[in-house]
């Protein structure tokens, strides 16, 4: 019983414990906040990428693309694991917006899609601002007869606002995009060498797409599939596309689904191997969304790992602080240890007193840090909003980063893991000085070895 009494009295009566508790709570607070925000950013980023491409992508590495996709789409329709599939033709192009600056040619990526199919496969329809009926995605409201296009929300400059939102007109305005692409034939050569090297066509702003992915929102212009195929030369001599995006049914896991599509694709290639242009199948890969977007997601994951390592070092510092605090306390309690030993308290009893003290520091410190972290995260966006309104200060400059709210979804398992880690850090930090104290000879502790 003396262990509990002494440990609690040391905890309550020693001002230095305030330092130890503050250090632990501060570390827990910082780790919870940073891990939650960082974790939220990574999860959000992955989710946006997943939404952007669907579950699986059958994609050509080459700008030339691959043919016979309609036949393969038919097969996908009959595949039980597939919910929807969307053919996409991609290419690079130059664009001009004459109403804004007729001399400014800027590079864009063109994505030719069937908006209905693409909306079933990805969350494309949810990224649109004006369109309610996806059948009319490429029909400008002001003149449905004109060919429409959907640029990424950042393609039209100057619309991003400091709060992360975008300026939108009440209804789409008649902005013309003159898009010029270099059509390639199935061999990869310029399709119209000797005639017009460039395919140029005007499209009219019908909506914009806000996917939350900086690159897509800043450089992609969606066009009707057929139009994009013409611009990219994928309409001759046989129709080609760059990729097929696939969404699986809910009960199908992505790896299982990808495996089935791979098998289906292998069979398809085998069957079409003697057809003209079948050599283009060599460039085609069947990938899960994670693999397809690896080059984009990986740096962020690496950053997350780096942050975790950095915060593990913070944990080491916590252990060191606890070690120093306990060492100081135990140094001052040398006499007490001698007294306890002189009345027959065993080594484990002394050890328990100081370890309990460490546990109290850890429990109280981690609890305070967790509560503070939780409260901060709940209010972080309000706080940032207030700071922005009052002092024009933001954690992230929304005119530069495609981030809306600061991610603050609190994961209880993460808080629990940080709490337990902090407690363990305190116990480890307290173990060495406690062991040292417990092993002292009674006369040494009492400092009565005078003659």
């Amino acid at each position, binding site marked *: 019983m003396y262990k509990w009494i002494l440990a609690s009295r040391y905890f309550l009566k020693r001002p230095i414990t305030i330092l130890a508790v503050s250090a632990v709570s501060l570390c827990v607070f910082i780790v919870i906040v940073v891990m939650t925000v960082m974790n939220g950013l990574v999860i959000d980023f992955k989710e946006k990428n997943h939404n952007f491409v669907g579950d699986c992508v059958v994609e050509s590495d080459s700008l030339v693309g691959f043919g016979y996709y309609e036949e393969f789409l038919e097969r996908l329709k009959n595949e039980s694991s597939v919910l929807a599939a969307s053919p996409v033709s991609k290419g690079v192009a130059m664009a001009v917006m004459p109403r804004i600056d007729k001399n400014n040619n800027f590079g864009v990526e063109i994505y030719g899609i069937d908006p209905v199919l693409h909306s079933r496969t990805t969350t494309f329809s949810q990224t649109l601002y004006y369109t309610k009926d996806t059948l009319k995605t490429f029909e400008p409201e002001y003149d449905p007869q004109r060919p429409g296009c959907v640029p990424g929300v950042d393609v039209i400059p100057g619309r991003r606002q400091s709060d992360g939102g975008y300026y939108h007109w009440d209804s789409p305005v008649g902005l013309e995009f003159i898009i010029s692409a270099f059509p390639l034939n199935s061999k990869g050569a310029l399709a119209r060498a000797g005639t017009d090297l460039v395919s140029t066509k005007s499209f009219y702003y019908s909506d914009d797409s806000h996917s939350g992915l900086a690159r897509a929102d800043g450089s992609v212009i969606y066009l009707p599939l057929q139009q994009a195929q013409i611009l990219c030369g994928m309409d001759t001599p046989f129709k080609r596309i760059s990729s097929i995006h696939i969404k699986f049914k809910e009960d199908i896991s992505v790896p299982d689904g990808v495996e089935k599509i791979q098998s289906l694709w292998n069979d398809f290639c085998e069957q079409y191997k003697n057809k003209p242009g079948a050599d283009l199948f060599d460039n085609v890969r069947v990938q899960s969304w994670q693999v397809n977007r690896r080059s984009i997601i990986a740096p962020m994951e690496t950053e997350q790992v780096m942050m975790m390592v950095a915060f593990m070092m913070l944990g080491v510092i916590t252990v060191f602080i606890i070690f120093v605090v306990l060492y100081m306390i135990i140094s001052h309690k040398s006499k007490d240890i001698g007294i306890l030993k*002189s009345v027959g308290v*065993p080594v484990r009893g002394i050890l328990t007193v100081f370890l309990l003290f460490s546990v109290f520091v850890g429990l109280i410190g981690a609890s305070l840090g967790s509560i503070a972290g939780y409260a901060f995260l709940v209010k972080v966006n309000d706080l940032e909003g207030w700071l922005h309104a009052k002092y024009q200060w933001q954690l992230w400059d929304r005119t530069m980063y495609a981030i809306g709210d600061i991610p603050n979804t609190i994961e209880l398992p993460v808080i629990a893991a940080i709490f337990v880690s902090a407690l363990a850090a305190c116990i480890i930090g307290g173990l060495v000085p406690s062991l040292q104290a417990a092993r002292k000879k009674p006369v040494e502790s009492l400092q009565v070895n005078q003659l």
Partner: protein
Amino acid sequence: MNTILRAKNIHKSYKMGKARLEVLKGVDLTVPKGRLVAIIGASGCGKSTLLHILGALDTPDQGDVEFDGQNLKTFRRSKLDQFRNKKVGFVFQFYHLLDELSVLENVLVPAMASTGTLGWFNLREKAENKAKVLLERFGLKERLRHKPYELSGGERQRVAIARALINDPPLLLADEPTGNLDSRTGHGILEALKELNAEGQTMIMVTHDERIAAQAQTVIRLVDGKIKQAE
């Protein structure tokens, strides 16, 4: 008369820089049950060292200490803890009370140490009653909830004596129990110890004061690390 404690050929030395200082040079000592034994000697002659060795707070370089016929050298660590908890009670010159605990809690520490947390719930009432009786006997009935720093030197020493007696140890070891007190308070403490001895408590007391030593039934004079004479 039965012997409670016997020390044979006790040697103890300390390292002082590069030199080695021999403090005890073969001390032989026998303490019969119920005796009040005073160990007297000049400052630095090894009195306290001898007392610590007798109470298993320290170990001799050479020689044996037998308690009730059992050699302390053969005791394992846990048995030595039990020995210090049940068989001996210590009273130190500087009281050595735990500042964070109240008077009552200080007295109860040895009783708490003798059992686990669960065992304490069974023992608590009995031990608390006993502690209160002891503290009442030493005139501290009104001081149970006070902290040591709220007490006078004499009161603190009486708390220390009560703590030493809480587990009814057969042997009480007192290291200059009046050394830090004025003569009037010291006299009161000495009377309390003599009273305990009169009730049968065996006691070894270290002092450098001849007048205090004269109160003991046996006086052992330590000179130059050896017992010069036993009176």
